[in-house]
């Protein structure tokens, strides 16, 4: 089934990012027909955590601002789509390479994790801000 979106807006600070995960968890807790629901939920939560932490650290940096999130379960195919809008600095995600996993690094795993755990990750700069769009299939 498809549902109307849930909208959330939080201050762009690390202390609020767990709220996004909580919303995703409770939204998916009442969704039927998920394959590996616990793993899928965790993976979506981690991908969103990485993207939103990057918004706080890199798009806003020392500046303050907000993150507007919309979350929606859609059908055909059965999937969850999450959009995150910020008004921080724009950047080019294509410039970020996959980390060399045979070496250990103190950072640089965020985008790699988000890309690995999602079915699609897109980024666009619009007049109203930068928008991340995360898509995760729920039925595969």
């Amino acid at each position, binding site marked *: 089934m498809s549902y109307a979106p849930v909208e959330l807006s939080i201050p762009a600070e*690390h*202390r609020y*990012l*767990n709220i996004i*995960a909580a919303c995703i968890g409770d939204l998916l807790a009442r969704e039927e027909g998920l394959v590996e629901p*616990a*793993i899928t939920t*965790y*993976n979506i*939560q*981690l991908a969103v*955590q*990485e993207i939103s*932490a990057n918004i*706080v*650290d890199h798009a806003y940096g020392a500046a303050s601002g907000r993150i507007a999130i919309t979350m929606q379960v859609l059908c055909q195919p059965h999937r969850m789509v999450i959009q995150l809008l910020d008004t921080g600095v724009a950047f080019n995600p294509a410039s970020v390479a996959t980390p060399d*996993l*045979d070496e*250990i*690094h*103190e*950072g640089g*795993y*965020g985008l*790699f*994790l988000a890309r*690995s755990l999602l079915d699609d990750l897109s980024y666009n700069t619009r007049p109203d801000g930068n928008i991340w769009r995360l898509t995760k299939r729920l039925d595969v």
Partner: protein
Amino acid sequence: MEITVHNHIVQIAVVTTDSRIDAFSAPKLRERLDALVAGGANRFVIDLSAVPFIDSAGMAVLVSLLKKARVADGEVVLVWPNEEAARRILRLTKFDRVFPMADDVESALIASTR
């Protein structure tokens, strides 16, 4: 007959938490671990068994500790999280190849003294 007895004491810091380790809580964990390092600790067991969630900011704290511990001839052993999804992330990032991994604190302690 002269007999010398030398008591060799190996001290291992076992760090346990049941909280999320993420960009919010990671700085607190880093501070705590840095204080242990500053106090001379170089062997660590980080018990992740009850950790429900760990993000890349949390993982960065573990890497930072590993580097400091190895510089001081020490080691950091991780206890696998019970949360299967978190285990998969440690495998995906190949953290389980860089850190010695253990199934529980007891076997982590044995690994730490080898």
